[in-house]
């Protein structure tokens, strides 16, 4: 006989909401877990779902960054008294195994979007005194944690008198929220100006379905923040970047209080800091437009944040001078000149490279900058061998955003597809400065008008 599916409550952190579905979907597919929704979530921070086994819930939580807690749901109602009624009728055979005399327990009260004093919380716990618990209370290290949750919506400054929803259940697993703190950029040895924050890095590693023993590449590695997350989940990591000084930790320091970089700042030092050095393979100084990876060399995943040409330059090696040669005497210390690479070409090369060098079924996860008002899915980079499986927006300013694109490789490219022409992608950079220029001009004109009016007003007042 197969065990019946049980209902679970997944409680999420109310941050990067749009990335939730993409992360959970990726993890379900990574672990080959099936999950059913009992109703489709909208914007609330919780999902009510069903799993075939508790092991599945634990697996999911063991990798999720957006999940806070998972409960086996014993009751969910709109009103408190109804929840109590429900719990009183909850089948004893499902509840009893956790309420035995040899099981210590505690009851926690969580209130979402409304604050209560400790006294009020204790009073709330008292209302569950009818539960047939037999074991001792242990607040420090209980065998069983029961949780009562009151949900007051998501508008913090004006919560309603009574909760919208109330939940009661048994704690099963917690997500990886603490890992975000552990990998914080504030305490990381080597960071750059555009280091990715750990939460987004971990989300990327999850969407790339990185698992133990995978070979992962970041071709625009910078200070290696994506590699930290990839290695944390078991990936063996490679990085390449055109910036020699960055890879050697010789750029100007990014921390305001730091006058110069320490001698041993590097991506490798970061790996060491988090005890991940054994998963560090290598970093290379390399121009992405000139590939040195061998033909049949395959990566399990590619995670990257290419430069958008705003804070980090989009450059490749080259010169506009004709018939230019580096003279023999300058050769040993020559630093190659760079020309504009262009966003369109970077993404074109990135997808072609991925189609060629990912294993079939492998994923490439990358950020793509957009103008929010012009955004249109048809304008995204694409490749016939890669399927877009997730596309989530992170807003940056009123007008700009970046989207986290996740592609999965369907098959190896044909000879034709290796040399195919790609559609042009709008250059974010060009437009970025045009828009800025306009608004700056408009702003100045407006300010000038206001000054002029004030001046005239002043003159009139005098008269």
């Amino acid at each position: 006989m197969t065990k019946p599916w049980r209902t679970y409550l997944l409680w999420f952190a109310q941050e990067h909401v749009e990335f939730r579905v993409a992360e959970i979907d990726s993890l379900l597919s990574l672990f080959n877990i099936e999950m059913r929704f009992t109703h489709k979530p909208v914007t609330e921070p919780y999902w009510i779902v069903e799993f075939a086994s508790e092991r599945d819930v634990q697996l999911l939580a063991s990798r999720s960054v957006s999940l806070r807690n998972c409960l086996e749901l014993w009751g969910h109602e709109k009103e408190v008294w109804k929840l109590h009624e429900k719990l009183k009728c909850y089948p004893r055979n499902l509840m009893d195994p956790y309420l035995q005399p040899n099981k210590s327990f505690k009851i926690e009260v969580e209130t979402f979007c409304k604050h209560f004093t400790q006294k009020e919380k204790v009073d709330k716990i008292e209302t569950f005194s009818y539960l047939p618990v037999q074991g001792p209370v242990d607040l420090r290290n209980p065998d069983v944690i029961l949780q009562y949750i009151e949900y007051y919506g998501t508008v913090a400054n004006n919560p309603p008198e009574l909760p919208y929803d109330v939940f009661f259940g048994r704690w099963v697993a917690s997500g990886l929220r603490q890992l975000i703190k552990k990998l914080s950029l504030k305490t990381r040895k080597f960071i750059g100006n555009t280091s990715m924050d750990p939460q987004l890095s971990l989300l990327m590693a999850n969407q790339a379905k990185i698992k133990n023993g995978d070979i992962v590449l970041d071709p625009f590695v910078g200070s290696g923040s994506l590699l930290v997350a990839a290695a944390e989940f078991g990936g063996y990591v490679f990085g390449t970047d055109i910036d020699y000084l960055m890879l050697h930790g010789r750029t100007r320091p990014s921390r305001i209080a730091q006058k110069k970089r320490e001698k041993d700042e590097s991506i490798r030092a970061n790996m060491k800091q988090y005890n991940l050095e054994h998963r560090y393979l290598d970093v290379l100084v390399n121009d992405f437009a000139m590939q040195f990876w061998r033909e049949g060399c395959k990566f399990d995943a590619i995670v990257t944040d290419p430069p958008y040409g705003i804070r980090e330059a989009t450059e490749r090696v080259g010169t506009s001078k004709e018939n230019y040669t580096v003279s023999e005497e300058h050769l040993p210390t020559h630093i190659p000149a760079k020309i504009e690479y262009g966003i369109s070409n970077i993404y074109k090369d990135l997808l072609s490279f991925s189609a060629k060098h990912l294993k079939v079924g492998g994923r490439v996860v990358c950020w793509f900058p957009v103008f929010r008002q012009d955004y249109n899915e048809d304008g995204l980079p694409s490749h016939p061998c890669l399927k877009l499986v997730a596309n989530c927006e992170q807003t940056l300013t009123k007008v700009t955003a970046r989207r986290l694109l996740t592609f999965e490789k369907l098959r190896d490219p044909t000879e034709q597809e290796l040399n195919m022409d790609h559609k042009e992608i709008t250059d974010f950079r060009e437009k970025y400065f045009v828009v800025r220029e306009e608004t700056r001009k408009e702003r100045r004109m407006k300010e000038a008008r206001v000054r002029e009016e004030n001046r005239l007003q002043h003159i009139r007042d005098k008269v």
Partner: protein
Amino acid sequence: MKLLTHNMLTSKCMKGVSVGYPLGINASDVRVSEVDFNPDFIARMIPKLDWAVLYNAAESIGQLEDLPKDLANNYENDQEFLKKVHHVLLEVDIINGELVCPETGRKFPINNGIPNMLLNEDEV
């Protein structure tokens, strides 16, 4: 730079180079340090390697130890063998030296463990 990386690099993208593989190695400073052993990872890597290239590279920098010239059959379960492969792939690190294109002789310096594969603007 590790020998695993060396196994995956070619200078084929350069003008006039048809194969560019394997790159030669001139090592002036090699460091050997202990790295956690993950037999599954090594077993998964072996089929992706060019074994002869790995063998010759290890020999050329004097780190061969007793790595067999030919790939053992049934290596997945041979812990001793996997350990030897682990050693040459991940524990041997070329800190300073250079990689050399086998066709043009172009040298790519390795400083502080990081190879510099940048071409000059007159080479692209």
